[in-house]
C-alpha cells in the first residue's frame, strides 16, 4: 500500500511541476514550489515507513520549516515588487 501512496504522490509532484514550468505568473510558480515541498514531506514520511528509518522524519520537520520560510520570502518579494 505504501508503494501505491508513493506512486500517487509522485504523480502529484509531476502535476505540480507542470504548473511550475507553465506559470503563467510568478505567484503560480511559488505556490507550485510550495506544493512540491509539502509533497516531499509526505514522500519522506512514507519512505521512513518503508525503510523502517524513523530518523528520516527529522528531515520532514526541517523541510516543513524551510518551505515555509521560502514561501514567506517570496511573498515579501512579490509584495515589494508590486510597489507602492
Amino acid at each position, binding site marked *: *500500500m*505504501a508503494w*501505491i*501512496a*508513493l506512486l*500517487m*504522490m509522485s*504523480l*502529484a*509532484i*509531476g*502535476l*505540480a511541476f*507542470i*504548473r511550475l514550468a507553465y506559470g503563467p*505568473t*510568478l*505567484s*503560480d510558480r*511559488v*505556490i*507550485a514550489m*510550495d*506544493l512540491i515541498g*509539502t*509533497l516531499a*514531506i*509526505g514522500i519522506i*514520511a*512514507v519512505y*521512513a*515507513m518503508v525503510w523502517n528509518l*524513523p530518523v528520516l*522524519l*527529522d528531515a*520532514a*520537520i526541517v523541510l*516543513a*520549516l524551510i*518551505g*515555509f520560510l521560502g*514561501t*514567506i520570502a*517570496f*511573498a*515579501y518579494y*512579490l*509584495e515589494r*515588487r*508590486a510597489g*507602492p
Partner: protein
Amino acid sequence: MREILSGVLILIGALFMLLGGVGILRMPDLYTRMSATTKVVTLGIGSIMLGVTIHFGELGVLTRALAVIALVLLTTPVAAHMIGRASYFAGVPLCKETVVNELHGHYDLRTHELESIPLAELEPQLLIMRVPISHWSAIAEKTLAETELRRHYKVTVLAVRRGSYVIPNPDGDVRLLAGDELILIGTPEQLSEAAKAVQG
C-alpha cells in the same frame, strides 16, 4: 490490524495529495489553485503522519509527527495568505467566472491597507441614518415585514440595534421593540419620511 489502519490512512493522505496536484493544474486562476492546494495538502499531510505514527507505534515518532502536523497547520494558512495578498497587489487576474470580488476598491494601493469606502464616496445620493423606535411608535411590537417600511417609504433596514446587541441584515420576522434603533439607508427625503413614521 494496525498495518491495515496505517495503510488506509496513508492511502487517504496520498489521495488528497494527488487531488492537490490535480487542483493546482486544473483550477482556473491563482486564488482557486491556492484554495485547492492548501486545504487538501494540509489534510493529506495530517493523514499520512498519523498513518506513519500508527505503523511505528513509538513515542519518538509520535512527537515528530505531531511537530510536522503542527508546523504544516500553522504555516500553510499564513503562507497562503501572504502569497494571495501579494499576488492581489501584483495584479494577478481573477478568472473570468468570478462572480464577486469583495476586495475590489477596498485596498489602498499606496499604503497596502484595507479599508471600507465611506458611503458618501461610493454613492453620494444615499444616506445611512439611525432612527430610535419610541414607546408610542406605531411599529413597536411589529415584525419587520409587518412594518412594510420598504413598500411605504422605499427605505431599507440595514441593521437593528438592541442595547449593545446588533442584528445585521435582519429578516422580515425580526420583531421590533420600543427602544430599538433602526439603521436605515435611502435618499434624504425617503429617510425623513420614514423617520417620522418610526418615531410616531
